[in-house]
């Protein structure tokens, strides 16, 4: 399916609006990171709403930083980080939805991760990544290297397993009646947030 053909008035006209910007950006990006980019999927070809750039795990931070700070790109706003369980090898995809506060366009960066592998944390680029990465760790069990405080966030500390993995059962209830005690270590002035 070609989503681009079906961009209709009620969902906004931003394909036509940003098509040219994306084209030049992707060209520039392809030249700058020849080996680091695995695959680029763009809306006219693939069923997606914005260009998706699959990058190698090791180059993730440098590409995110480049997209944030390079004048022609300015993807300075982190809309969301999430992950998907693809049920094949490599198992997970970590997804970064970026937004530009000056050009108002979006782009999506993905990196593929095997089960048990780590990803570099983007907290130093965007502090907002902190809780989003904690949620991915909680829900999928993907660890983020260099994350200041990688704990569970939605689930209890005592919870076993990672609920958004496809092999976790839908009714895998684990009930805790006592709340977690106050963690005084987090209040030390030396602790990073």
């Amino acid at each position: 399916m070609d989503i681009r053909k079906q961009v209709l008035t009620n969902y906004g006209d931003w394909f036509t609006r940003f098509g040219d910007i994306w084209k030049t950006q992707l060209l520039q990006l392809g030249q700058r990171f020849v080996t680091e980019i695995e695959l680029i999927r763009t809306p006219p070809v693939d069923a997606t709403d914005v260009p998706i750039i699959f990058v190698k795990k090791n180059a993730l931070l440098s590409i995110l930083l480049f997209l944030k700070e390079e004048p022609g790109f300015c993807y300075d706003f982190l809309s969301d980080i999430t992950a998907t369980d693809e049920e094949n090898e490599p198992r997970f995809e970590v997804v970064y939805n970026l937004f530009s506060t000056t050009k108002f366009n979006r782009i999506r960066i993905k990196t593929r991760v095997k089960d048990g592998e780590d990803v570099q944390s983007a907290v130093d680029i965007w502090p907002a990544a902190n809780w989003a990465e904690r949620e991915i760790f909680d829900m999928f069990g993907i660890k983020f290297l260099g994350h200041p405080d990688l704990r569970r966030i939605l689930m209890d500390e005592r919870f076993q397993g990672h609920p958004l993995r496809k092999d976790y059962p839908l009714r895998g209830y684990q009930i805790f009646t006592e709340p977690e005690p106050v963690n005084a270590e987090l209040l030390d002035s030396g602790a990073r947030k």
Partner: protein
Amino acid sequence: MANAVHDPDDIWDDARSIINIGPTHPAMHGALRMVAKLNGETIERSYCEFGFTHRAKEKLGENRTYHQFIVYTDRLNYCSSLANNVTYAMAVERLMGLEIPERAIWIRMICAEVARVIDHLICIGINAVDLGAFSYFLYGYHQREEAYTFIEKLCGARLTTSFVRIGGLIYNAPEGWEREVEAWVKRTREVVDEMDRLLTDNKIWRKRTVEVAIFNREDCIKYSFTGPNARAAGLDIDLRRDQPCMFYKELEFDVPTAQNGDVFDRYIVRLEEIRQSLNIILQCLNRIKPGTVWCEDKRVRIPDKDVVYNTMEGLIHHFKFFMTGFDVPEGEAYTQFEAVNGELGFYIVSKGHPRAHRMRIRGPSVYHFQGLSKMVEGEKIADMVAALGSINVIAGEIDR
């Protein structure tokens, strides 16, 4: 800021204590928890916890059909469920490439704006209650109840509306509904002006809010703040204007902004946004025309009851729709809408089945709540309540 929290006027200065607020505490909006280390009365360091009302919506999104998931979107931001319904329906329709009729879009826009008005009314009202101005809240809450009355006429429910269907709306607006909304808009305008006169220049209100819990523009970008909270700090982004969907491009409205990013600015931006939303509703009411509210695409059109009861094909269609659901073509899209508190996004990955492969909900409140610890660092503990009320975090949206 972290090291400079001494207050010479505080007789308890240099006395450290740890206090725990929540998960169930009247000042925490919903089941949220904050643990703070105080130096006298000043917050030195704090951390927030949530997840107490986690209902596994993202997991349910992978295990329910697209139609069944509509009810779960009500319970995201339960103060403005209509806006969530609209965003979710847009997200799925976009993946399917459906064009819905004009009247349905106008009604959806009215719904989204009504949701914005009633959510802002409750936000500024509750913020004032937390700071001791109870009667102020009742003015807004009355209008909110009035709005519920015509929302009830629209879909039969007051709080959890589930009004929108993929490919249209469950019911057309009843006869005379537009006039009723128009009358409500006029009354609400007067009430908002009255609320403005009552509180905005009040000395105590100003003292409690001006230059309290400042979150500036740079911090807003760093912490992914969106919506009125970001606009209060001068980050002038409104997705209705900057990435327009539906018919927002054809309407005239201002995007109010402020510069300081303190509690007062967040309050005044919301108050002004109510007025703008009321204008938008009036413009929509002028443009709306009679007609159908269903996209006649057989995949998503729920068959009418007389067809279901009187024809074999209709009955089969009905059962196929509700038991198997419809396939959404393979693809992925991140659909965002300027919901009440900011950017509400649905990132849906479809593998061509009636159930989504991944249903990610990006709630604005998650990111706002994340910024709270930084926002209140160096503030008095009592101002934490003001800060929390002013960013309008809704537990349902954070916990999902």
